[in-house]
């Protein structure tokens, strides 16, 4: 447990991504199985200890610490695991088992033994180990390590390709002994069950002005980039699995999508809500996302369907190395045979020049349905990741609004001495209401101007946050606006970035929130 707790402590306090990768890669190199596998599972959120609820831990703490003193401390510290680790009053001799053994003990604890064992563990642990132990039980480390970063470290320590690790990731299980055997060249690449496993998706690069000069239009086709969420659908004999772009299984949220297929198939498409295959806006789709329980009312109001883009597997045949053209042929053939209410084909848009496509985009785009166009190479295969030269996204023109700078926070790593994370707002009567945050879009010189303004015009500090004089206007570019009841202003911007500094513009000329809503919502 010492090694594990020191690892996550170091990761928490390190802000550089590269350094985190180094720390993790060293750990994987110098730790044996199954400890490193369990650590990997914890870091990637694949491990849950359901048998010990956090309320039980609190109960144990209250048996040993005055409740009022604990509450005051928790208010101050703000993190439960940390509060418990610091306040725990007992110290006993002994040392904690290693991470895999601890997990094994915790998983198999009998109900009656829980309190005694946890109390003993808390007492023999040092403060960092206690913190790690409570985090392990409560789940969710929140130490700024994504699952992608952990896998990047795996690739680094083993010299294997990240893509290959991603390919099998969703088919392997804790504590990943077969994975580590392969990574250490002591075994074959693990075989995975296709019907259960998410396959990493092929993603597009944004198209640039220069690309239009170099790319030959006749080698490409286009499709609408539908404004939903990208999904992978795996249909088995009687099963349906829907995965989000990041590999999360979201099948449960969309029970109406049933299997009408007679064959095993893996499809790529866009999940949308709407009737007769006409999509409603993204905001409506959001009503269906992140819900564990789906009610009939929700399904009636916002019925889900999928626009199909691609086919990856058919009857155990991997089609990913075939060209887009032949995959499309297979997709259309499959679609004809398996027509149902949940699947629609995404149309192929043909064009003879980039100008023609540009005009098409301008005239036919529907703001609520399309995010822009996808441009795909006709003879390109399906390559996981974001390979250059195959798929491009041509987003609709960004929208712009001038807003007033309100708050700033310092950045991380290279930017740690700069205020580089900005909150901005619009007028709501004579008060400003924040509408979003942005931490990129500006160049180095603009950052210096912003940083200087923040330092010289701070009116209040809340911990790391500085509130500034409401005088600096910045032009914000964004892709779309959604209604949001999570934000006080009632709006949430998609992909906001700082486009320009408007030092010339007085804050009083920034528009009212109500005007913004009527213009963009």
């Amino acid at each position, binding site marked *: 447990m010492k090694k594990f707790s020191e690892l996550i*402590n170091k990761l*928490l*306090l*390190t*802000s550089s991504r590269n350094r985190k990768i180094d720390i993790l890669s060293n750990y994987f190199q110098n730790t044996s199985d199954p400890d490193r596998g369990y650590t990997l599972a914890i870091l990637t959120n694949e491990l849950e200890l359901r048998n010990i609820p956090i309320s039980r831990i609190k109960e144990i703490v209250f048996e040993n*610490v*005055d409740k*009022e*003193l*604990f509450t*005051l*401390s928790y208010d*101050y*510290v*703000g*993190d439960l695991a*940390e*509060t418990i680790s*610091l*306040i725990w*009053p007992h110290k006993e001799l002994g040392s904690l088992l290693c991470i895999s053994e601890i997990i094994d003990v915790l998983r198999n604890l009998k109900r009656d033994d829980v309190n005694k064992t946890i109390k003993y563990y808390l007492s023999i642990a040092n*403060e960092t180990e206690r*913190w790690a132990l409570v985090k392990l039980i409560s789940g969710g480390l929140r130490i700024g390590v994504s699952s992608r970063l952990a896998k990047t470290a795996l690739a680094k320590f083993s010299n294997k390709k990240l893509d290959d690790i991603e390919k099998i990731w969703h088919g392997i299980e804790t504590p990943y002994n077969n994975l580590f055997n392969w990574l250490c060249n002591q075994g074959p690449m693990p075989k995975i069950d296709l019907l259960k496993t998410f396959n990493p998706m092929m993603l597009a690069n944004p198209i640039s002005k220069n690309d239009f000069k170099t790319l030959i239009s006749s080698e490409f086709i286009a499709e609408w980039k539908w404004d939903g969420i990208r999904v992978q659908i795996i249909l088995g004999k009687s099963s349906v699995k829907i995965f989000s772009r990041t590999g999360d299984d979201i099948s449960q949220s969309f029970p109406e999508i049933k299997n009408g297929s007679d064959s095993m198939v893996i499809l790529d498409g866009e999940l949308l809500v709407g009737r007769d295959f006409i999509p409603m806006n993204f905001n409506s789709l959001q009503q269906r996302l992140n819900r564990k329980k789906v009610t009939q009312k929700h399904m009636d109001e916002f019925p889900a369907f999928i626009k199909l883009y691609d086919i990856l597997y058919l009857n155990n045949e991997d089609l990913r190395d075939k060209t887009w053209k032949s995959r499309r042929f297979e997709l259309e053939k499959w679609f004809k045979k398996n027509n149902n209410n949940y699947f629609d084909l995404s149309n192929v848009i043909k064009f003879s020049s980039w100008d023609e496509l540009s005009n098409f985009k301008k005239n036919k785009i529907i703001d609520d349905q399309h995010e822009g166009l996808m441009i795909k190479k006709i003879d390109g295969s399906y390559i996981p990741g974001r390979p250059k030269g195959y798929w491009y996204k041509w987003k609709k023109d960004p929208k712009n609004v001038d807003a007033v700078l309100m708050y700033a926070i*310092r950045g*991380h790593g290279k930017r*740690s*001495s700069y205020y580089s994370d900005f909150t901005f707002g619009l007028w709501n009567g004579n008060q400003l209401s924040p509408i979003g945050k942005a931490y990129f879009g500006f160049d180095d010189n603009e950052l210096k101007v912003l940083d200087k303004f923040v330092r010289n015009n701070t009116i209040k500090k809340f*911990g*790391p946050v500085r509130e500034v004089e409401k005088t600096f206007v910045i032009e914000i570019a964004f892709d779309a606006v959604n209604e949001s009841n999570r934000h006080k202003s009632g709006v949430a911007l998609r992909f906001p970035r700082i486009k320009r500094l408007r030092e010339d513009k007085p804050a009083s000329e920034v528009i009212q929130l109500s005007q913004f809503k009527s213009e963009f919502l």
Partner: protein
Amino acid sequence: MKWIDKNLHIKPINTHIDPYKPVENAIITHGHADHAKPGHKNVLATSETIEIMKIRYGENCAENFQVLPTNQSLKINDVLIKFFPAGHILGSVQVLTEYKGEKINFTGDYKTTSDQTCKDFEPVKCHTLVTEATFGLPVFQHPNENEEIKKLLKSINLFSERPHLVGVYALGKAQRVINLLRQQGYDKEIFIHGSLEKLCEYYQNNNIDLGKITKVNLTKKKDYNGEIILAPPSAIKNIWSRKFEDPIICQASGWMSIKQRAKQSLVELPLIISDHADWNELTKYIKFTDAENVYVTHGREEAIVHWCKMNKINGLALSLSGRDDEEQL
């Protein structure tokens, strides 16, 4: 506490302890800015505290200075005043006052653990204790400071290609960290931010071993890889720190026991070194004094007051304003 009010005003002799605003007569417990303010008419303090005030605010920061050495009594009218070492920083004292047989002790800021940069804390019995509570929560249990210093030395060994920027308050913490490094056998040159210079010099003049210390000169090109550089936290957050290439940001403070706090301040290597009493020291000392009444001047008062209640001691929070500037703890 009939003869002393909530602003720590000793009524029979019209004297304030650590007043926040300029007053006629002030007793100053130590030189930190939230306790020692310029502009009083008469100041009573230890010679070290007076010297520190003069370094920081100028020779004329008060009209008259009167020195009272520790463990000597001074009687003004019917009030007896005696200073006891507080172990916080050089010159810091507790102020014991006695009037008509009632003893009230003001701790000022204190710690009970040993520190080579100042006199060791001396406990005193009293009827009423007026205490600080900067770290007055049971989550604050400071570790051994030598173990913390070893962490810094270990990191210097491990990352000898990176400068180690250590955030310290200019008075007290800076000198203590340097002294602790010397105690661990670190005999290399230690670099300091300009704002630490005068106070380090003053400590050295008081025979406190700081070894070779050099002011950072950023106009000259120098390689600070593997060196220890001490600077106030504000300078580390500021443009000043941009001149160092890829530094490891460290901070020496009692707050560093809270990881989220360290993370929030972008501190990579937290060093839990505090010049204040932790929870155990605070509560142990309250018990030792046999005080019937405990007044808490500043810090996390609620928890100490609650603890007093649990231990059948009268506790009350004074919530003095202007205290608790976290940078200097």
